[in-house]
Protein backbone atom coordinates (compact mmCIF):
# COMPACT_ATOMS: atom_id res chain seq x y z
CA UNK A 1 0.00 0.00 0.00
CA UNK A 2 1.46 3.30 -0.97
CA UNK A 3 1.41 6.21 1.44
CA UNK A 4 -0.49 8.53 -0.91
CA UNK A 5 -2.59 7.20 -3.77
CA UNK A 6 -4.81 8.72 -6.45
CA UNK A 7 -6.98 5.91 -7.87
CA UNK A 8 -8.87 6.49 -11.14
CA UNK A 9 -9.53 10.06 -10.03
CA UNK A 10 -11.92 12.14 -12.09
CA UNK A 11 -12.79 15.77 -11.44
CA UNK A 12 -14.82 18.36 -13.31
CA UNK A 13 -16.71 21.55 -12.58
CA UNK A 14 -20.44 21.46 -13.27
CA UNK A 15 -22.89 18.61 -13.04
CA UNK A 16 -22.86 17.07 -16.50
CA UNK A 17 -19.78 16.08 -18.36
CA UNK A 18 -19.18 17.80 -21.67
CA UNK A 19 -16.19 18.29 -23.89
CA UNK A 20 -14.50 21.08 -22.01
CA UNK A 21 -15.28 20.85 -18.32
CA UNK A 22 -13.41 17.68 -17.39
CA UNK A 23 -10.24 18.56 -15.52
CA UNK A 24 -8.94 15.15 -14.50
CA UNK A 25 -9.95 11.78 -15.92
CA UNK A 26 -8.58 8.50 -14.62
CA UNK A 27 -5.63 9.97 -12.75
CA UNK A 28 -3.54 7.24 -11.11
CA UNK A 29 -0.64 8.36 -8.98
CA UNK A 30 1.24 6.85 -6.08
CA UNK A 31 3.69 8.54 -3.75
CA UNK A 32 5.66 6.52 -1.24
CA UNK A 33 6.47 7.84 2.22
CA UNK A 34 9.28 10.37 2.43
CA UNK A 35 9.31 11.06 -1.30
CA UNK A 36 9.67 14.55 -2.74
CA UNK A 37 7.24 14.21 -5.65
CA UNK A 38 7.04 16.96 -8.26
CA UNK A 39 4.06 17.14 -10.58
CA UNK A 40 4.90 18.87 -13.84
CA UNK A 41 2.47 19.82 -16.53
CA UNK A 42 1.41 22.43 -19.05
CA UNK A 43 -0.79 25.23 -17.74
CA UNK A 44 -4.42 24.28 -17.25
CA UNK A 45 -3.67 20.56 -17.04
CA UNK A 46 -5.16 20.13 -13.60
CA UNK A 47 -2.05 19.76 -11.49
CA UNK A 48 -3.31 22.31 -8.97
CA UNK A 49 -6.62 20.44 -8.94
CA UNK A 50 -4.75 17.26 -8.01
CA UNK A 51 -3.14 19.10 -5.11
CA UNK A 52 -6.49 20.58 -4.03
CA UNK A 53 -7.99 17.08 -3.96
CA UNK A 54 -5.20 15.80 -1.74
CA UNK A 55 -5.50 18.88 0.47
CA UNK A 56 -9.22 18.23 0.82
CA UNK A 57 -10.31 21.58 -0.69
CA UNK A 58 -12.22 19.70 -3.39
CA UNK A 59 -13.73 16.22 -3.53
CA UNK A 60 -13.19 13.90 -6.53
CA UNK A 61 -16.17 13.18 -8.80
CA UNK A 62 -15.00 9.63 -9.29
CA UNK A 63 -12.24 7.47 -7.94
CA UNK A 64 -10.54 8.14 -4.65
CA UNK A 65 -7.67 10.03 -3.09
CA UNK A 66 -6.13 8.06 -0.24
CA UNK A 67 -3.61 8.79 2.50
CA UNK A 68 -2.47 5.61 4.24
CA UNK A 69 -5.42 3.85 2.67
CA UNK A 70 -8.00 6.27 4.02
CA UNK A 71 -9.91 8.60 1.73
CA UNK A 72 -9.24 12.32 2.19
CA UNK A 73 -12.34 13.92 3.70
CA UNK A 74 -11.37 17.48 4.52
CA UNK A 75 -8.31 19.69 4.99
CA UNK A 76 -6.24 18.90 8.02
CA UNK A 77 -3.00 19.59 9.78
CA UNK A 78 -1.53 16.27 8.60
CA UNK A 79 -1.39 17.72 5.06
CA UNK A 80 -0.25 21.33 5.28
CA UNK A 81 -0.28 23.60 2.26
CA UNK A 82 2.11 26.24 0.99
CA UNK A 83 -0.02 28.39 -1.28
CA UNK A 84 1.02 29.94 -4.55
CA UNK A 85 0.40 33.57 -3.67
CA UNK A 86 0.78 35.35 -0.39
CA UNK A 87 -2.98 35.88 0.09
CA UNK A 88 -3.03 33.08 2.60
CA UNK A 89 -0.94 35.00 5.11
CA UNK A 90 -2.94 37.05 7.58
CA UNK A 91 -2.03 40.69 6.96
CA UNK A 92 -2.98 41.79 10.48
CA UNK A 93 -0.56 39.30 12.04
CA UNK A 94 3.20 39.75 12.22
CA UNK A 95 5.53 37.20 10.65
CA UNK A 96 5.89 35.53 14.03
CA UNK A 97 2.15 35.53 14.71
CA UNK A 98 1.46 34.03 11.29
CA UNK A 99 3.82 31.16 12.05
CA UNK A 100 2.22 30.78 15.48
CA UNK A 101 -1.26 30.50 13.94
CA UNK A 102 -1.34 26.68 13.55
CA UNK A 103 0.12 26.26 17.04
CA UNK A 104 -2.57 28.52 18.45
CA UNK A 105 -5.21 26.37 16.74
CA UNK A 106 -3.58 23.31 18.35
CA UNK A 107 -4.17 24.98 21.71
CA UNK A 108 -0.53 25.34 22.69
CA UNK A 109 0.46 27.83 25.39
CA UNK A 110 1.95 31.21 24.49
CA UNK A 111 5.51 30.40 25.54
CA UNK A 112 5.75 27.17 23.57
CA UNK A 113 4.08 28.73 20.53
CA UNK A 114 6.57 31.54 20.58
CA UNK A 115 9.67 29.42 20.95
CA UNK A 116 8.67 26.98 18.23
CA UNK A 117 7.64 29.73 15.82
CA UNK A 118 10.82 31.70 16.51
CA UNK A 119 12.92 28.63 15.84
CA UNK A 120 11.29 28.15 12.44
CA UNK A 121 11.53 31.81 11.54
CA UNK A 122 15.22 31.64 12.30
CA UNK A 123 15.49 28.49 10.20
CA UNK A 124 14.09 30.29 7.14
CA UNK A 125 16.30 33.33 7.80
CA UNK A 126 13.66 35.71 9.13
CA UNK A 127 14.79 35.92 12.77
CA UNK A 128 15.24 39.68 12.46
CA UNK A 129 11.86 40.22 10.80
CA UNK A 130 9.64 38.49 13.34
CA UNK A 131 7.77 41.66 14.31
CA UNK A 132 7.15 42.82 10.74
CA UNK A 133 3.85 42.51 8.94
CA UNK A 134 3.61 40.71 5.59
CA UNK A 135 3.22 43.92 3.62
CA UNK A 136 6.58 45.09 4.95
CA UNK A 137 8.34 42.05 3.50
CA UNK A 138 9.36 41.03 -0.02
CA UNK A 139 7.66 38.26 -1.98
CA UNK A 140 10.46 35.83 -1.19
CA UNK A 141 10.27 36.63 2.52
CA UNK A 142 6.52 36.07 2.51
CA UNK A 143 6.99 32.63 0.98
CA UNK A 144 9.56 31.93 3.69
CA UNK A 145 6.90 32.75 6.29
CA UNK A 146 4.60 30.29 4.55
CA UNK A 147 7.31 27.62 4.64
CA UNK A 148 7.88 28.24 8.35
CA UNK A 149 4.12 28.22 9.03
CA UNK A 150 3.74 24.86 7.27
CA UNK A 151 6.79 23.18 8.77
CA UNK A 152 6.11 24.31 12.32
CA UNK A 153 3.20 21.83 12.27
CA UNK A 154 5.53 18.82 11.87
CA UNK A 155 3.07 17.48 9.31
CA UNK A 156 3.81 14.19 7.55
CA UNK A 157 2.65 15.62 4.20
CA UNK A 158 3.59 18.98 2.64
CA UNK A 159 1.64 20.30 -0.34
CA UNK A 160 3.19 23.10 -2.36
CA UNK A 161 1.34 24.76 -5.20
CA UNK A 162 3.95 26.59 -7.29
CA UNK A 163 5.16 28.39 -4.17
CA UNK A 164 7.98 30.16 -6.01
CA UNK A 165 6.05 30.89 -9.20
CA UNK A 166 5.72 34.61 -8.56
CA UNK A 167 9.30 35.21 -7.43
CA UNK A 168 12.19 36.59 -9.45
CA UNK A 169 14.69 34.06 -10.80
CA UNK A 170 17.43 34.82 -8.25
CA UNK A 171 15.16 34.55 -5.23
CA UNK A 172 13.57 31.42 -6.65
CA UNK A 173 16.95 29.69 -6.99
CA UNK A 174 17.89 30.55 -3.41
CA UNK A 175 14.59 29.33 -2.02
CA UNK A 176 14.79 26.09 -4.03
CA UNK A 177 18.16 25.29 -2.50
CA UNK A 178 16.91 26.15 0.98
CA UNK A 179 13.83 24.00 0.52
CA UNK A 180 16.04 21.02 -0.38
CA UNK A 181 17.92 21.48 2.91
CA UNK A 182 14.78 21.92 4.99
CA UNK A 183 12.93 18.95 3.50
CA UNK A 184 15.95 16.67 3.68
CA UNK A 185 15.84 16.85 7.45
CA UNK A 186 12.07 16.71 7.90
CA UNK A 187 11.27 13.25 6.55
CA UNK A 188 8.02 14.66 5.17
CA UNK A 189 6.35 13.46 2.01
CA UNK A 190 6.01 16.34 -0.45
CA UNK A 191 3.76 16.97 -3.41
CA UNK A 192 5.14 19.98 -5.26
CA UNK A 193 3.40 21.52 -8.28
CA UNK A 194 5.32 23.45 -10.91
CA UNK A 195 5.65 23.98 -14.64
CA UNK A 196 9.37 24.70 -14.37
CA UNK A 197 11.46 21.66 -15.35
CA UNK A 198 14.67 22.95 -13.75
CA UNK A 199 12.86 23.53 -10.47
CA UNK A 200 11.50 19.98 -10.63
CA UNK A 201 14.96 18.49 -11.18
CA UNK A 202 16.53 20.46 -8.32
CA UNK A 203 13.89 19.33 -5.86
CA UNK A 204 12.42 15.98 -6.84
CA UNK A 205 12.99 12.38 -5.93
CA UNK A 206 10.37 11.56 -8.50
CA UNK A 207 8.72 13.62 -11.21
CA UNK A 208 5.32 13.03 -12.77
CA UNK A 209 4.46 14.69 -16.07
CA UNK A 210 0.80 15.30 -16.80
CA UNK A 211 -0.98 15.41 -20.15
CA UNK A 212 -2.53 18.57 -21.51
CA UNK A 213 -6.15 18.97 -20.41
CA UNK A 214 -9.08 18.58 -20.62
CA UNK A 215 -9.45 15.26 -18.89
CA UNK A 216 -5.81 15.06 -17.89
CA UNK A 217 -3.94 12.20 -16.27
CA UNK A 218 -0.35 11.18 -15.69
CA UNK A 219 1.66 10.72 -18.87
CA UNK A 220 5.07 9.61 -17.64
CA UNK A 221 7.18 9.40 -14.49
CA UNK A 222 10.89 9.91 -13.89
CA UNK A 223 12.91 8.61 -10.98
CA UNK A 224 15.75 11.00 -10.16
CA UNK A 225 18.84 9.54 -8.55
CA UNK A 226 21.17 12.50 -9.10
CA UNK A 227 23.13 13.18 -5.90
CA UNK A 228 22.26 16.32 -3.93
CA UNK A 229 22.93 19.15 -3.92
CA UNK A 230 22.22 19.13 -7.63
CA UNK A 231 24.21 21.37 -9.89
CA UNK A 232 22.12 23.28 -12.41
CA UNK A 233 25.10 23.44 -14.75
CA UNK A 234 26.07 19.77 -14.75
CA UNK A 235 25.92 17.43 -17.74
CA UNK A 236 23.68 15.00 -15.85
CA UNK A 237 21.26 17.82 -15.05
CA UNK A 238 21.10 18.76 -18.72
CA UNK A 239 20.51 15.17 -19.77
CA UNK A 240 17.56 14.73 -17.40
CA UNK A 241 16.23 18.13 -18.44
CA UNK A 242 16.32 17.05 -22.04
CA UNK A 243 14.45 13.79 -21.40
CA UNK A 244 11.70 15.53 -19.49
CA UNK A 245 11.53 18.40 -21.95
CA UNK A 246 10.78 15.95 -24.77
CA UNK A 247 7.82 14.47 -22.86
CA UNK A 248 6.50 17.75 -21.51
CA UNK A 249 7.18 19.65 -24.72
CA UNK A 250 4.63 17.61 -26.68
CA UNK A 251 1.94 18.48 -24.13
CA UNK A 252 2.82 22.15 -24.06
CA UNK A 253 2.69 22.09 -27.87
CA UNK A 254 -0.87 20.72 -27.73
CA UNK A 255 -1.92 23.59 -25.49
CA UNK A 256 -0.29 26.14 -27.77
CA UNK A 257 -1.92 24.64 -30.88
CA UNK A 258 -5.33 24.58 -29.27
CA UNK A 259 -5.01 28.15 -28.05
CA UNK A 260 -3.99 29.22 -31.55
CA UNK A 261 -6.98 27.40 -33.06
CA UNK A 262 -9.48 28.85 -30.59
Amino acid at each position, binding site marked *: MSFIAFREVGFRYGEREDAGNSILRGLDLEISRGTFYVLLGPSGCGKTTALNLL*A*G*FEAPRSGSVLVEGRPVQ*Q*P*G*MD*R*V*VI*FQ*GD*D*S*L*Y*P*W*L*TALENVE*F*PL*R*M*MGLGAAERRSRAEAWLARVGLANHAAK*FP*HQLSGGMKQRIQIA*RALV*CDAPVLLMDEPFGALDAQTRTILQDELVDICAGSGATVLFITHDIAEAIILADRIGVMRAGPGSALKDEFELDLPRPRNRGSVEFAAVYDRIQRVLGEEVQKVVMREAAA
Partner: protein
Amino acid sequence: MSRGAVRGGGAVLLFLLVWEIAARMIFVPAVLPAPSAIAAEGWARWLSGALQWDVLMSASRLAVGFAAGSLLGAFLGLLFGAFAPVRRILEPLVQFLRFIPPIAWLTPVLIWFGIGEEGKWVLITYTTTFMVLLNTLAGFAEQHRDRMRAARVFGAGSWETFRHVRLPATVPWILGGMRIGMGNSFQTLIVAEMLASNEGLGQLILNSRLQLSTEGMFVGIAGIAVLGILADSAFRAATRRMFQRYRLGW
Protein backbone atom coordinates in the same frame (compact mmCIF):
# COMPACT_ATOMS: atom_id res chain seq x y z
CA MET B 1 3.99 71.29 9.81
CA SER B 2 4.09 69.27 6.60
CA ARG B 3 4.23 70.88 3.19
CA GLY B 4 0.75 69.51 2.40
CA ALA B 5 -0.69 71.10 5.52
CA VAL B 6 0.92 74.44 4.66
CA ARG B 7 -0.53 74.33 1.15
CA GLY B 8 -3.94 73.29 2.44
CA GLY B 9 -3.90 76.09 5.00
CA GLY B 10 -2.83 78.52 2.29
CA ALA B 11 -5.78 77.51 0.12
CA VAL B 12 -8.21 78.12 2.99
CA LEU B 13 -6.68 81.55 3.70
CA LEU B 14 -6.84 82.50 0.04
CA PHE B 15 -10.48 81.40 -0.12
CA LEU B 16 -11.30 83.52 2.95
CA LEU B 17 -9.45 86.49 1.47
CA VAL B 18 -11.36 86.33 -1.82
CA TRP B 19 -14.59 85.95 0.13
CA GLU B 20 -13.74 88.94 2.33
CA ILE B 21 -13.03 91.15 -0.69
CA ALA B 22 -16.09 89.96 -2.59
CA ALA B 23 -18.34 90.43 0.44
CA ARG B 24 -17.11 93.99 1.01
CA MET B 25 -17.15 95.08 -2.61
CA ILE B 26 -20.12 93.26 -4.13
CA PHE B 27 -22.63 91.96 -1.59
CA VAL B 28 -24.58 93.49 1.24
CA PRO B 29 -24.00 91.80 4.64
CA ALA B 30 -27.56 90.49 4.80
CA VAL B 31 -26.84 88.34 1.72
CA LEU B 32 -23.22 87.42 2.20
CA PRO B 33 -21.42 88.65 5.31
CA ALA B 34 -17.62 88.93 5.25
CA PRO B 35 -15.58 86.32 7.14
CA SER B 36 -14.41 89.04 9.51
CA ALA B 37 -18.03 89.91 10.37
CA ILE B 38 -18.84 86.22 10.89
CA ALA B 39 -15.81 85.85 13.14
CA ALA B 40 -16.87 88.89 15.15
CA GLU B 41 -20.40 87.48 15.53
CA GLY B 42 -18.94 84.13 16.58
CA TRP B 43 -16.69 85.81 19.13
CA ALA B 44 -19.63 87.77 20.58
CA ARG B 45 -21.64 84.58 20.93
CA TRP B 46 -18.63 82.85 22.48
CA LEU B 47 -18.25 85.62 25.08
CA SER B 48 -21.93 85.33 25.97
CA GLY B 49 -21.58 81.55 26.31
CA ALA B 50 -24.37 80.86 23.81
CA LEU B 51 -22.08 79.39 21.15
CA GLN B 52 -20.48 76.92 23.55
CA TRP B 53 -23.90 75.78 24.63
CA ASP B 54 -25.07 75.13 21.05
CA VAL B 55 -21.85 73.28 20.23
CA LEU B 56 -22.08 71.25 23.41
CA MET B 57 -25.66 70.24 22.68
CA SER B 58 -24.89 69.17 19.11
CA ALA B 59 -21.70 67.39 20.09
CA SER B 60 -23.33 65.48 22.93
CA ARG B 61 -26.15 64.28 20.67
CA LEU B 62 -23.63 63.13 18.10
CA ALA B 63 -21.47 61.42 20.70
CA VAL B 64 -24.35 59.47 22.24
CA GLY B 65 -25.86 58.47 18.90
CA PHE B 66 -22.51 57.67 17.34
CA ALA B 67 -21.42 55.48 20.23
CA ALA B 68 -24.72 53.63 20.45
CA GLY B 69 -25.05 53.28 16.68
CA SER B 70 -21.49 52.02 16.27
CA LEU B 71 -21.96 49.40 18.97
CA LEU B 72 -25.34 48.31 17.66
CA GLY B 73 -24.25 48.29 14.00
CA ALA B 74 -21.08 46.34 14.71
CA PHE B 75 -22.98 43.91 16.92
CA LEU B 76 -25.64 43.26 14.27
CA GLY B 77 -23.03 43.07 11.50
CA LEU B 78 -20.98 40.51 13.41
CA LEU B 79 -24.11 38.55 14.27
CA PHE B 80 -25.09 38.48 10.58
CA GLY B 81 -21.55 37.58 9.61
CA ALA B 82 -21.16 34.82 12.16
CA PHE B 83 -24.56 33.21 11.69
CA ALA B 84 -25.70 32.83 8.11
CA PRO B 85 -29.31 31.93 9.09
CA VAL B 86 -29.62 35.21 11.01
CA ARG B 87 -28.44 37.08 7.94
CA ARG B 88 -30.87 35.24 5.66
CA ILE B 89 -33.79 36.07 7.93
CA LEU B 90 -32.96 39.71 8.65
CA GLU B 91 -31.24 40.90 5.49
CA PRO B 92 -34.50 41.52 3.57
CA LEU B 93 -35.57 43.81 6.40
CA VAL B 94 -32.29 45.68 6.17
CA GLN B 95 -32.69 46.04 2.41
CA PHE B 96 -36.23 47.32 2.96
CA LEU B 97 -35.09 49.97 5.43
CA ARG B 98 -31.90 51.11 3.74
CA PHE B 99 -33.54 53.48 1.24
CA ILE B 100 -35.47 55.35 3.89
CA PRO B 101 -33.40 58.39 4.82
CA PRO B 102 -33.12 58.63 8.61
CA ILE B 103 -34.78 62.03 8.61
CA ALA B 104 -37.96 60.47 7.20
CA TRP B 105 -38.37 58.97 10.66
CA LEU B 106 -38.34 62.40 12.32
CA THR B 107 -42.11 62.76 12.66
CA PRO B 108 -42.77 59.30 14.12
CA VAL B 109 -39.79 59.76 16.40
CA LEU B 110 -41.23 63.07 17.61
CA ILE B 111 -44.51 61.32 18.41
CA TRP B 112 -42.77 58.46 20.19
CA PHE B 113 -40.00 60.32 22.01
CA GLY B 114 -41.08 63.96 22.08
CA ILE B 115 -38.88 66.97 21.37
CA GLY B 116 -36.27 66.09 24.01
CA GLU B 117 -32.84 64.56 23.64
CA GLU B 118 -34.00 60.97 23.26
CA GLY B 119 -35.47 61.54 19.82
CA LYS B 120 -32.18 62.93 18.46
CA TRP B 121 -30.23 60.10 20.03
CA VAL B 122 -32.54 57.60 18.36
CA LEU B 123 -32.23 59.23 14.93
CA ILE B 124 -28.43 59.48 15.05
CA THR B 125 -28.13 55.97 16.45
CA TYR B 126 -30.26 54.76 13.56
CA THR B 127 -28.16 56.65 11.00
CA THR B 128 -24.89 55.29 12.36
CA THR B 129 -26.19 51.76 12.91
CA PHE B 130 -27.16 51.46 9.29
CA MET B 131 -23.87 52.63 7.85
CA VAL B 132 -21.84 50.42 10.20
CA LEU B 133 -24.09 47.41 9.57
CA LEU B 134 -24.03 47.73 5.78
CA ASN B 135 -20.28 48.24 5.70
CA THR B 136 -19.67 45.31 8.03
CA LEU B 137 -21.79 43.09 5.80
CA ALA B 138 -19.79 44.25 2.77
CA GLY B 139 -16.63 43.32 4.66
CA PHE B 140 -17.93 39.84 5.37
CA ALA B 141 -18.97 39.42 1.75
CA GLU B 142 -15.39 39.91 0.58
CA GLN B 143 -13.93 36.58 -0.46
CA HIS B 144 -10.45 35.54 0.60
CA ARG B 145 -10.22 31.97 -0.65
CA ASP B 146 -6.67 31.18 0.36
CA ARG B 147 -7.02 32.72 3.82
CA MET B 148 -10.06 30.59 4.48
CA ARG B 149 -8.38 27.51 3.09
CA ALA B 150 -5.29 28.13 5.20
CA ALA B 151 -7.48 28.41 8.29
CA ARG B 152 -9.00 25.00 7.54
CA VAL B 153 -5.62 23.45 6.82
CA PHE B 154 -4.19 24.75 10.05
CA GLY B 155 -6.96 23.35 12.16
CA ALA B 156 -9.38 26.26 12.68
CA GLY B 157 -12.99 25.24 13.33
CA SER B 158 -15.85 27.50 12.29
CA TRP B 159 -15.75 29.57 15.49
CA GLU B 160 -11.97 29.94 15.33
CA THR B 161 -12.17 30.88 11.66
CA PHE B 162 -14.66 33.58 12.58
CA ARG B 163 -12.68 34.80 15.56
CA HIS B 164 -9.19 34.70 14.03
CA VAL B 165 -9.75 35.16 10.30
CA ARG B 166 -13.12 36.61 9.29
CA LEU B 167 -13.52 39.06 12.16
CA PRO B 168 -10.06 40.65 11.89
CA ALA B 169 -10.54 40.99 8.13
CA THR B 170 -13.73 42.95 8.80
CA VAL B 171 -12.29 45.38 11.36
CA PRO B 172 -11.30 48.02 8.75
CA TRP B 173 -14.79 47.78 7.23
CA ILE B 174 -16.46 48.30 10.61
CA LEU B 175 -14.29 51.35 11.30
CA GLY B 176 -14.89 52.64 7.77
CA GLY B 177 -18.63 52.30 8.36
CA MET B 178 -18.28 54.28 11.58
CA ARG B 179 -16.54 57.07 9.72
CA ILE B 180 -19.23 57.26 7.04
CA GLY B 181 -21.87 56.95 9.75
CA MET B 182 -20.39 59.94 11.54
CA GLY B 183 -20.56 62.02 8.37
CA ASN B 184 -24.18 61.07 7.76
CA SER B 185 -25.01 61.71 11.41
CA PHE B 186 -24.19 65.38 10.91
CA GLN B 187 -26.87 65.64 8.23
CA THR B 188 -29.43 63.90 10.41
CA LEU B 189 -28.49 66.00 13.41
CA ILE B 190 -28.71 69.36 11.70
CA VAL B 191 -32.10 68.68 10.12
CA ALA B 192 -33.43 67.27 13.39
CA GLU B 193 -32.18 70.32 15.29
CA MET B 194 -33.70 72.69 12.76
CA LEU B 195 -37.10 71.04 12.88
CA ALA B 196 -37.37 69.89 16.45
CA SER B 197 -35.06 71.59 18.91
CA ASN B 198 -34.43 74.72 20.93
CA GLU B 199 -30.68 74.36 21.05
CA GLY B 200 -27.80 73.17 18.93
CA LEU B 201 -26.00 74.38 15.81
CA GLY B 202 -28.89 73.45 13.52
CA GLN B 203 -31.22 75.58 15.62
CA LEU B 204 -28.65 78.41 15.59
CA ILE B 205 -28.77 78.45 11.78
CA LEU B 206 -32.56 78.44 11.63
CA ASN B 207 -33.03 80.95 14.44
CA SER B 208 -30.55 83.36 12.88
CA ARG B 209 -32.64 83.39 9.74
CA LEU B 210 -35.71 84.27 11.75
CA GLN B 211 -33.73 87.05 13.45
CA LEU B 212 -32.36 88.21 10.08
CA SER B 213 -28.81 87.59 11.31
CA THR B 214 -26.96 86.19 8.31
CA GLU B 215 -23.76 86.32 10.35
CA GLY B 216 -25.35 84.04 12.94
CA MET B 217 -26.31 81.56 10.21
CA PHE B 218 -22.73 81.38 9.05
CA VAL B 219 -21.48 81.01 12.60
CA GLY B 220 -23.69 77.91 12.83
CA ILE B 221 -22.49 76.59 9.47
CA ALA B 222 -18.85 77.18 10.33
CA GLY B 223 -19.44 75.59 13.72
CA ILE B 224 -20.67 72.42 12.03
CA ALA B 225 -17.61 72.34 9.78
CA VAL B 226 -15.22 72.79 12.69
CA LEU B 227 -17.05 70.22 14.80
CA GLY B 228 -16.96 67.77 11.90
CA ILE B 229 -13.25 68.24 11.25
CA LEU B 230 -12.44 67.84 14.93
CA ALA B 231 -14.59 64.73 15.35
CA ASP B 232 -13.20 63.08 12.22
CA SER B 233 -9.57 63.91 13.05
CA ALA B 234 -10.01 62.60 16.57
CA PHE B 235 -11.62 59.40 15.26
CA ARG B 236 -8.88 58.87 12.68
CA ALA B 237 -6.07 59.53 15.14
CA ALA B 238 -7.56 57.27 17.81
CA THR B 239 -8.33 54.36 15.48
CA ARG B 240 -4.99 54.62 13.70
CA ARG B 241 -3.32 54.16 17.04
CA MET B 242 -5.63 51.48 18.41
CA PHE B 243 -5.86 49.42 15.22
CA GLN B 244 -2.36 49.91 13.88
CA ARG B 245 -2.01 46.37 12.58
CA TYR B 246 -5.10 46.66 10.40
CA ARG B 247 -3.51 49.28 8.17
CA LEU B 248 -6.51 51.57 7.98
CA GLY B 249 -6.58 53.69 4.86
CA TRP B 250 -6.48 56.98 6.83
